[in-house]
């Protein structure tokens, strides 16, 4: 991993804790996560189910608040931004791709793609719009409504929507979770090319080692902590680490469970 200056960081989490509930029902989803996401890089977040991947991503994207610690997007500290500030941040500087239900059913594909821009009252950059549309290969589908598109096409529309605003970071939570391998490959290939050709920053949560292999770097979460990472991954290397982590976590299960009950430091 190359040395990163401050301006090379698109988003950063410093000692982030996230606790859900209280008392008996208390769940510590993140326990002191430190991570820097490089600008112009495609980062994948992996880890077993319940390890806190979605939570971390929601916190990074300003969709959820942290219990302790700091999140920043670019130079902006997220803590202390009110709802209006966070809304504006999401609208102007962040893009999203969810696993499903990414599109509004009453809008056409074009309108869905342009939605964040219209909400912001900004004019789309014609050239960039065409580039995005070309890359996702939806030029002939723009006037269709989501119900007339396949699952893969819908996710590509969602990608286009996330990219058309040229956000500083795009967050994608299992964007290919509901897709077959061919559609997945289309979507992932598109995401990677937007990173390498347009310098886009993308953070993607995934379960799939093959999907993670599209990324430049993989961060592994285990029980709310960063436990490992990998640069220039391949499906095999990712799978290896995941197997290792599984056994590691099994071994440490007792210890970790013990610390669960205690208060957050």
């Amino acid at each position, binding site marked *: 991993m190359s040395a990163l200056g401050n301006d090379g960081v698109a988003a950063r989490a410093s000692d982030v804790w996230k606790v859900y509930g209280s008392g008996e029902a208390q769940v510590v989803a993140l326990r002191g996560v430190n991570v820097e996401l490089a600008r112009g890089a495609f980062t994948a977040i992996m880890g077993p189910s319940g390890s806190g991947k979605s939570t971390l991503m929601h916190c990074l994207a300003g*969709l959820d608040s942290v219990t302790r610690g700091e999140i920043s997007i670019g130079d902006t500290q997220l803590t202390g931004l009110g709802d209006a500030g966070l*809304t504006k941040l*999401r609208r102007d500087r962040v893009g999203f791709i969810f696993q499903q239900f990414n599109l509004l059913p*009453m809008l056409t594909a074009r309108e869905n793609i342009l*939605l964040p821009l219209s*909400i912001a009252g900004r004019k789309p950059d014609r050239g960039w719009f065409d580039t995005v549309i070309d890359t996702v290969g939806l030029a002939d589908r723009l006037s269709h409504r989501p119900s007339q598109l396949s699952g893969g096409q819908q996710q590509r529309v969602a990608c286009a929507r996330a990219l058309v605003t040229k956000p500083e970071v795009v967050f994608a939570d299992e964007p290919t979770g509901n897709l077959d391998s061919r559609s997945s490959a289309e979507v992932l290939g598109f995401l990677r090319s937007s990173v390498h050709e347009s310098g886009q920053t993308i953070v993607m949560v995934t379960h799939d080692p093959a999907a993670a292999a599209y990324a430049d770097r993989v961060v592994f979460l285990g029980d709310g902590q960063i436990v490992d990472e990998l640069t220039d991954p391949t499906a095999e290397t990712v799978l290896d680490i995941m197997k290792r982590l599984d056994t590691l976590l099994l071994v440490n299960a007792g210890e970790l469970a013990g610390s669960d009950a205690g208060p957050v430091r």
Partner: protein
Amino acid sequence: MLRATLTSMLHRKLRLVLSGLAVVLGVMFVSGSLILTDTLSRSFDNLFAGVYADTDVQVHGEPKVAVDEFEGEQVPATMPADIVDRVADVPGVASAVGEVEADGARVIGSDGKVVTSFGPPRLGVNWGGQGGLIELRDGRGPSAPNEIAIDAALASNAGLSVGDQVGVLTLEPRQDFELVGTFGFTEDRDTIGGVQFVAFTDEVAQELMLGETGVWTAVDVKAAPGVSHEQLRDDLTAALGDGYQVRTGAELAEDASAGLRSGLAFFNNILLGFAGVALFVGIFLILNTFSIMVAQRTRELALTRAVGASRRQIVGSVLVEAVVIGLIAAGLGLAAGVGVGALLATLAGGFASLPTAGLAVPASAVISAFTVGVLVTVVAAGMPALRASRVPPVAAMQEAATPDRPLTRLSVAGTATLAAGGAMLALGLTGNAGGQELWAVLGGVLVCFVGAALLTPLIARPVVSLLGRLFSWSVPGKLGRLNSGRNPRRTAITAAALMVGVALVAGVGVILDSAKTSIGGLAEDAMDAELIISGEQTGPRPPSFDPDVLDRAAALPGVDTVAGLYGDQAEVDGQTGFVSAGTDLAAVRKMFGLTAESGTVDTLAPGQLVVDSRTAEDRGIAVGDRLPVQLSRGEPSTYQVVGVYEWLPIFGGFVLPPEATANFGIPQPDMGFVKLTEGTPADQVQPQVAALLADSPEVSVTDQNAFIEQQSSQLDSVLTMIQILLALAILIAVLGIINTLALSVLERTREIGLLRAVGLGRAATMRMITVEAVVIAVFGALLGVVVGSGLGAAVVGALGDEGITTLTLPWTQLATYLVLAGIVGVVAAVLPAIRAARTDVLTAIAYE
């Protein structure tokens, strides 16, 4: 299955609250009306039981003309003074006292205005001394012809106290008296049901209230010890013979309140009619709620079917839900109705100075509350229940889709229903419904509403999208517009509920406005008098004025002709109805532009009359006929028909010669018309006529425009009344909008979450919901305005014969409804919008 239904209801209790509320409000209206009228009617019973508590038996004469409660006032019969001795001679009579009691004693208050009454009579009586009900409060009873005593409540309303000089209008024009006493009633009451009492000495009371001395209207009889009231009544009846009404105190009380009760029953029916409208609107709301819930529960229902529930069980489960809601809502509605009814009864009692009877819940209120509540809910839930039963088990495995079912069948049904409603309406309006015209019209309107509601989904999409364009300048606006067009059925039902109320208000508005312009236009064209003397009638008795004023006005410089009109309830040829008399038929003819159809309508000699062409045709009367006429007073006599004039919407009926007015119930003109000479400005003569009217404060003189304005303002108050009574129906429709929006917001949680995630701010989210609400509300109001104008126009068309010839649309009024609907939409959106703005992005995007 039952348990599953109930548990699942508990989970959706919030969604059920609003639809339940519609039933609660409707049932509240029904039971509130019943309790209000029941309480009032028991209050009247109590009142009269108290009034006649000390009365053993009273003797009255048979009234000359029996007048129906709603037509006008009945003039009491008089009996010659020797009746008292005849009664006293009957064995078993301890004492007999002659009494005078007649309506029409109007006191002029210290402000120079007549103390008005909104219903209770203003009785002129003879002073019979203290005792019985009467208790002197101040001063003494009248003992000289120029003295009077009045009841304490009247004295305080009029701002009068003992020693004041008081002007009183009676059968005679104003006369002044010295107020020598005020009196109250037993149990420390200042008034009895708001009735105004003016007590004169015997002769003065006879002269001024009955028109002749030496007559009584009643003989109050006390029974000798040991003689029962009933016995005495029978003895008196036998002794006096025909022509007298002999009744015990209990019977008098019953008769008096029976008269008022029939009025109350009528009032009650009107209230129930409006309650029916509110419930009808409630059906739409419930229908929508159940439909939406069934749609949202498609998977759940399919799963139930998949694990073996039969269709019947599904229908049953939805209907059980409806029955439970209906029962609970009816119970709450009944409770609220009891409260509202009692409150209104107390208010009405206070207004009418009527001590209200204690609270009681009549069985009719309980039965109708539960019947109506359950019926309405079950009827409304019927369709959704059927739809629920048609959910195939396989739907459990499919993505829950909102199927865009074709609207063809619905539209065909709607067109057919609308046509049927139109046909019923046409039959009713043209008088071809076999005597059931009113029901045909009301039923027709109802069926038309259902038809229009069925057609609404068809037009919802284009119209809503057109309306929505008004708001499409912003992204939230555009999204709101798109949302409101997404589910045409849902939008349509919601809007149709609002349509009903608005259509009724708009329809009545169109009819009244057309009536106003038509009659106003007619009056303007036909009435050839620059100045008109008239007053506002607030009770059963029309205001009247000194006939001398007419003569003196005629002598004013610049006055060409003057005519006065008198009215009476008379029995002509065996039928009771309104008759009039003019001071000068030629003048009346000229001023109203009457034309003779046959005979002559120029002059009337004593014993002659003219009649309008319609009455003549209806009753087969022709020139030359001799008709027996019994006026309110005097003996029957025969009149000869000398002319038939063409009926006018502003002038009709029998017209008698001026001599007849002496025997009218009110022997004073109630209207006067002044025609000026060419070139005399009206405002020059008006103050002079006004000066002549100084002693007739019930009336005033206005120019023609102001008069027409005055008449139309009465129609305006009718409209206001109807608007108030329809307010509840409209409120329920607004609840429907809130309900639909709330359910939609719930349904679209995920979408709203997504929008919030990609940067839609809270305010913008609220704006999106608000636009949707405004579009639905304005759409509903627009439908209402269109349907209402249509219905109104149909009625106006049918009323052409009655003189309503011009169709006028009250544009500003109609536009106001649209604007108000927009505001209502904004208000209705508040809660759902807040809810939408609070949508938690994370929960919204978390997949189940």
